[in-house]
């Protein structure tokens, strides 16, 4: 991250409320963060914690009929949330590219890959069909697809899961966006291809200063690419800080549980039997019915404070506040956070 340069994206107190038959669902509750030029912010967290919704809201992709979005989200000097729909359409693509989570549903099953890519390229650039097609083939080659020319003429179901995912990445990269949002972009990919995609994104960042929001549940990827990590739970940020702080020295009980649930490549077998993985017991709260106090309270193994049940803990700085990226966590129990003595604290 380059200090002093204006951030690519500045999100302030983002809130999303969805109208559901079960009543209003508070899916995102006051999220604030910045993405600097060339910086990568990794967003991790429980399924349903509002990661996808929070970025969909930024790009105005939630139907206005059901979603109420408040807060501020300034992309290169313009507030995305108050932008006119036409302007927003122009911004999507060259301003902010997005790789959606669901590869099967973000490609049209009855159109060839080529048509879908060419459409994306031509929507924002004044290029003729042949040039767009050449560009499309180049992009497919860049994301490591073999036989890019041939792939253009194929239909989504003829590609493997990982190949489809790479097509979607190619579409998002087709306009070299200033901000790239990758929602589980490499989840369907094997590690070598994943590494290749990450290299590609890092190249784009170095060349264009692209800011990246990387949503993933692969903490290995987070460790490799992120400058900053944001842990979400129940629509809130429960912990953030530099990647070292959060992964090596997690403070929030949820973050610790998450790290503890990882299978380790170098796992110890006990008497030839591999032990079961630790899990975080319980289910996440429904956004229609968030607990009154700490959002993690019903599942928290610590609950070491009287306020846990009644009062939402604020994001408080842990350790030194005088650094560029302070380590913060939203929990009442900061004692014993050094990781010592707590079984699931940190990682060896």
């Amino acid at each position: 991250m380059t200090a002093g340069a204006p951030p690519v994206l500045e999100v302030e107190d983002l809130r999303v409320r969805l109208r559901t038959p079960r009543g209003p669902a508070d899916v995102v509750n006051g999220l604030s963060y910045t993405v600097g030029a060339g910086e990568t912010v990794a967003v991790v967290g429980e399924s349903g914690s509002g990661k996808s919704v929070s970025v969909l809201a930024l790009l105005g992709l939630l139907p206005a009929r059901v979603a109420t979005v408040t807060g501020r989200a300034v992309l290169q000097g313009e507030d995305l949330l108050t932008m006119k729909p036409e302007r927003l359409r122009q911004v999507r693509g060259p301003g902010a590219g997005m790789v959606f989570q669901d590869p099967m549903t973000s490609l049209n099953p009855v159109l060839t890959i080529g048509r879908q890519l060419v459409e994306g390229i031509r929507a924002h650039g004044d290029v003729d069909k042949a040039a767009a097609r050449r560009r499309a083939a180049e992009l497919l080659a860049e994301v490591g697809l073999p036989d890019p020319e041939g792939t253009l003429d194929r239909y989504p179901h003829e590609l493997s899961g990982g190949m489809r995912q790479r097509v979607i990445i190619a579409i998002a990269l087709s306009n070299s966006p200033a901000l790239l949002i990758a929602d589980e972009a490499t989840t369907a990919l094997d590690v070598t291809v994943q590494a290749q995609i990450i290299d590609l994104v890092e190249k784009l960042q170095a060349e264009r200063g692209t800011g990246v929001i990387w949503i993933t549940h692969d903490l290995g990827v987070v460790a490799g690419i992120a400058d900053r990590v944001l842990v979400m739970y129940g629509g809130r940020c429960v912990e953030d800080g530099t990647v070292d702080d959060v992964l090596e020295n997690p403070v929030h009980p949820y973050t610790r549980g998450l790290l503890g649930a990882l299978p380790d490549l170098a796992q110890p077998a006990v008497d030839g039997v591999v032990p079961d993985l630790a899990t975080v017991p319980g289910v996440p709260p429904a956004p229609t019915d968030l607990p009154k106090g700490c959002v993690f309270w019903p599942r928290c193994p610590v609950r070491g404070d009287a306020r846990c049940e009644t009062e939402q803990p604020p994001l408080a700085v842990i350790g030194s506040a005088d650094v560029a990226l302070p380590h913060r966590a939203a929990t009442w129990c900061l004692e014993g956070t050094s990781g010592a003595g707590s079984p699931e604290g940190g990682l060896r």
Partner: protein
Amino acid sequence: MTGQPLPPPDAPVAGQGDAKGTSPGPTTLRPVRPRWRETLGLLARNPTAATATLVLIGIILMSVFDETLAPQGPNEIDVADRLQSPSWSHPFGTDDLGRDILSRVILGAGVSLRVGFLAVGIALVIGTLIGLLAGFYGRWVDDVLMRIMDMFFAFPAVLLAIAILAVRGPGSGNTALAIGIVYIPIFARVTRASVLGVREEVYVRASRSVGASDLRLLTRHVLPNAAPPIIVQTSISLAFAVLAEAALSFLGLGTQPPSPSWGLMLAEGRGFIDLAWWLAFFPGMAIFLTVLCFNLLGDGLRDVLDPKQRTLMAGGGR
């Protein structure tokens, strides 16, 4: 282990999220609502579509109880009362033979709707079947069936209908048949397009993986999931069928006098448009209202049946 009963599950370990700990939380333990009721519920929240539905129900009820509702018989001639403008005794006026227009509009609803429903029924059943087979099996089945449909489509619709009626003779039954045949390719195409998307869905393969037959796949998985656009098309086609019946009757090929079909009344009223506007106006309004409502219902259904919309509004999804 085949054939042996399954051993009981491990007792869930306390504090371990594995077994019971992940059963749905209290919020998902609500009474189950069947799909169609959910659809109705969502539709009811769309004011335009809800109004259209109510009006249509009204028109259908009117056609069912037409005998009771109509103040007079459709063909009661009262020469003394010819070409009366709307009044208390004849709210819609009377025609050149002194027949009560209100009564004829009410009784005409049955004729118009019957033709509409019958026509769309024919097109729906045959067209959907063709589209289903073409989309699901693809390859030569698709080629053969869809080329035939293209041939149908290549004829101008009215011409095709006129040709069919010329062969089979006029009358409301044949009108329905003609309109139905003309609409078959529309349903075949809509169905095929929808099936093409559904066919590749993982759940179809999943069902095949447990040994389900093609028939089962088609009836239990493909058709229900391909249905929304077909339902929307049905609603819109009903509108067009009512219009087509009117047009054909207007041309003298559809319903034959003295049956009171709206189209026929419109045709008959045409000659009096300067003299007695109500002759054409009220049947025209009836057609307009019915067609409009079917179209609005179609639009409403399109929104409600869109799976993306549904998860969003039903609060499901991920």
